[in-house]
């Protein structure tokens, strides 16, 4: 199902990209859309902003995530202090939606933003500096946003992978051979860890190249990054613009593939260059290295701090009464912005929650059916099936979603509830499946065998034994699914034909308006709902914690 949808979506990009789409008046195959596209003056700058932001952000995010892993992971439960707090903070940041993150970061780094205000505490700053941030033409503000968002993602991908590596024992061997923990980590754990998180890294790179919501808030405007440019073209009332838009979407897909290829090549070159170091036998770090451990901890913290500040700035702005420029904190506190926003907030809130609930319910049911059926399949079939389910995450969603939109247009459906919810389900499903798959496989099979031997029919075993035992995992998967749905921007805009407003789309739309208090209200609401979902799931999991997982 997900594979078919992605395939159909791509097909309906490829056809109009070459001028063929009768429903839009294109009846002959031609290269005209590409000529139109290449004639667009800002294309090169748009591509530059896309590539620069992604290729600046990814190595930094990866490095910070690795540093945080090296610091937090081996300490584990033994060090309940700072590393634990840092891991907690990272998990909150991971759950924060992209849009809220971007809005908070925009507050933070703007010329009149929080960072400058904090600097003004010690420096003589009277007026906001004349800087073009966010939205600098090179896409560096966007890169900063991507770093803050990808670091927690890569960190938790690494934390999951780390459990397969027996890191404690490996580091122990390293120590018995005379290696300091930091060097042992770099030589023994880091290379293997990276090999295990390849797929999340590629997914993060693909996301960085196609992040429309973050780019709308933090990215350059004239021209915007490619993904945003493509979406802009589809908003053009002139339907003929859909042809170059489709060509642009296809170009974006190709660029993503090339970027992934380049990344892979860089991987191989770096691995080759570093390989001799593995075996050079050096244990005592060079003087430079001696400070690296401490520096690493500081860096890991420094990386987390702006994320926390960015997220905190949203509720603070939403409650600020007056907040004149050099003041680091506003005059506290008023609910005026909330009162002003509430009448308009209600509808998108209701719609967001409805779409999230339905999309999550569909995905949960689908994932349960998927996992139940998967048991009868061979391993190879199972792997291929999983790969198909994850396709929407790795493929360029710009191309595929534009195809969906063009298809809807061709069918005379202008977009709306049903397509938005179904497309949301397409993106929610892989996350729900991913969250359920591991607990599903680890459930002690003897419970079900016992129930079967007591004469329960298979569906009864599923409903009365397996699902109740997996309740904590189901609750977490549901919270994750709702969080994904509530964060989705582009699918909502493209499949909704601009007629469905959710918290994510409203917050982004308002961000260009400039009323920071109202934007603060929307961003805060979006983040609070998602966090509430995780807190509820966590509470449920704690209450029903049973020793059923072997």
């Amino acid at each position, binding site marked *: 199902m997900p594979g078919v949808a992605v395939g159909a979506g791509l097909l309906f990009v490829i056809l109009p990209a070459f001028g063929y789409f009768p429903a839009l008046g294109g009846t002959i195959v031609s290269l005209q859309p590409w000529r139109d596209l290449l004639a667009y003056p800002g294309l090169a700058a748009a591509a530059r902003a896309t590539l620069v932001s992604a290729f600046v952000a990814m190595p930094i995010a990866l490095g910070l995530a690795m540093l945080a892993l090296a610091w937090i992971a081996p300490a*584990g*439960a*033994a060090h309940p202090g700072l590393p634990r707090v840092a891991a907690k903070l990272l998990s909150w940041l991971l759950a924060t939606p992209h849009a809220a993150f971007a809005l908070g970061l925009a507050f933070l780094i703007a010329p009149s933003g929080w960072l400058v205000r904090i600097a003004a505490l010690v420096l003589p700053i009277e007026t906001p500096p004349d800087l073009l941030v966010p939205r600098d033409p090179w896409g560096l503000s966007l890169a900063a946003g991507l770093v803050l968002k990808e670091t927690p993602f890569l960190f938790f991908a690494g934390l999951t992978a780390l459990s397969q590596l027996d890191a*404690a*024992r*490996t*580091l*122990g*061997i*390293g*120590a*018995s*051979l*005379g*290696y*300091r*923990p930091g060097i*042992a980590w770099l*030589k*023994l754990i880091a*290379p*293997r860890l990276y*090999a295990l998180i390849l797929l999340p890294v590629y997914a993060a790179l693909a996301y960085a190249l196609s992040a429309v919501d973050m780019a709308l808030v933090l990215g350059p405007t004239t021209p915007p990054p490619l993904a945003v440019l493509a979406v802009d073209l589809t908003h053009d009332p002139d339907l003929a613009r859909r042809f170059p838009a489709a060509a642009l979407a296809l170009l974006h897909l190709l660029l993503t593939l090339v970027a992934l290829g380049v990344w892979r090549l860089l991987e191989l070159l770096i691995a080759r260059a570093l390989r*001799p170091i*593995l*075996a*050079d*036998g*050096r*244990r005592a770090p060079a003087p430079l290295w001696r400070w690296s451990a401490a520096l690493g901890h500081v860096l890991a913290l420094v990386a987390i701090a702006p994320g926390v500040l960015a997220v905190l700035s949203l509720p603070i702005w939403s409650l600020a009464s007056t907040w004149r420029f050099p003041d680091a904190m506003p005059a506290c506190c008023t609910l005026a912005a909330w009162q002003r926003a509430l009448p308009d907030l209600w509808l998108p809130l209701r719609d967001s929650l409805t779409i999230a609930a339905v999309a999550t319910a569909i995905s949960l049911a689908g994932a349960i059916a998927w996992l139940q059926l998967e048991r009868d399949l061979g391993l190879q079939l199972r792997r291929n099936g999983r790969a198909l389910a994850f396709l929407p995450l790795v493929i360029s969603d710009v191309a595929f979603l534009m195809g969906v939109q063009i298809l809807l247009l061709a069918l005379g459906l202008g977009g709306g509830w049903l397509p938005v919810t179904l497309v949301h389900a397409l993106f929610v499903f892989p996350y729900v499946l991913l969250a359920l798959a591991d607990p599903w496989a680890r459930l002690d099979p003897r419970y079900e065998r016992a129930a079967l031997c007591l004469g329960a029919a298979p569906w009864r075993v599923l409903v009365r034994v397996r699902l109740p035992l997996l309740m904590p995992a189901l609750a977490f998967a549901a919270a994750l699914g709702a969080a994904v749905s509530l964060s989705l921007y582009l699918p909502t805009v493209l499949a909704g034909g601009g007629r469905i407003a959710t918290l994510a789309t409203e917050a982004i739309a308002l961000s260009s308006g400039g009323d920071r208090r109202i934007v603060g209200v929307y961003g805060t609401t979006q983040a609070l709902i998602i966090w509430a979902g995780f807190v509820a799931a966590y509470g449920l999991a704690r209450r029903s914690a049973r020793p059923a997982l072997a």
Partner: protein
Amino acid sequence: MLELRDVTIRQGDHRLFAPLTCRIVPGRPVTIMGPSGAGKSSLLAWLTGVLPAGLAGEGEALLDGASVLGLPAYRRRLGILFQDDLLFPHMTVGENLAFGLPPKDNRGPDRAARRDRIAQALARVELDGFADRDPLTLSGGERARVALLRVLLSEPRALLLDEPFSKLDMTLRDRFRSLVFQSATHLPVLLVSHDPQDSVAAGGDVLELRPNHGHRGNR
């Protein structure tokens, strides 16, 4: 010389075994016997400085008269061999050995010299030409020998053996055992095992790890 004085491992208030005292000189390996779960592996983990949280060691451990307990794990230089060879899967056999081999003090390009030393070491244990092999393609006996070489090349001050023979089959076990003891005659060797054959082969003193309260501790 490696010396243990009144050593035991505690889990909370519970001592895993009665306090243990012994002296280990080069050429006379000491064997500590005990059933599985008696705390043998924990004892070695404590000596090497990697005892898991929740356990605590008591007593004193001296190497050539100086306590090792104050040193971080990576400066104790106590080589250890486990039941599993634990060769690093992302390195070749040669790289695994090079990882153990300390660099020369002078900073010159000693890569060729290192490669020679590794080739010689491999030849000594009948693994000529194995340097570029992937450890996963080796047999159990071959992997065990590589693990032994890796420890010896790291120039340890004593050798700790955590049942490294128990996973090998009979014939391999005898050969590998004598190889280990022959190549470590210059080192104090402490072996923990539950196989009486091991203590016979070691030829030195044998200590029995007695459970403290007739109870089994965890691991």
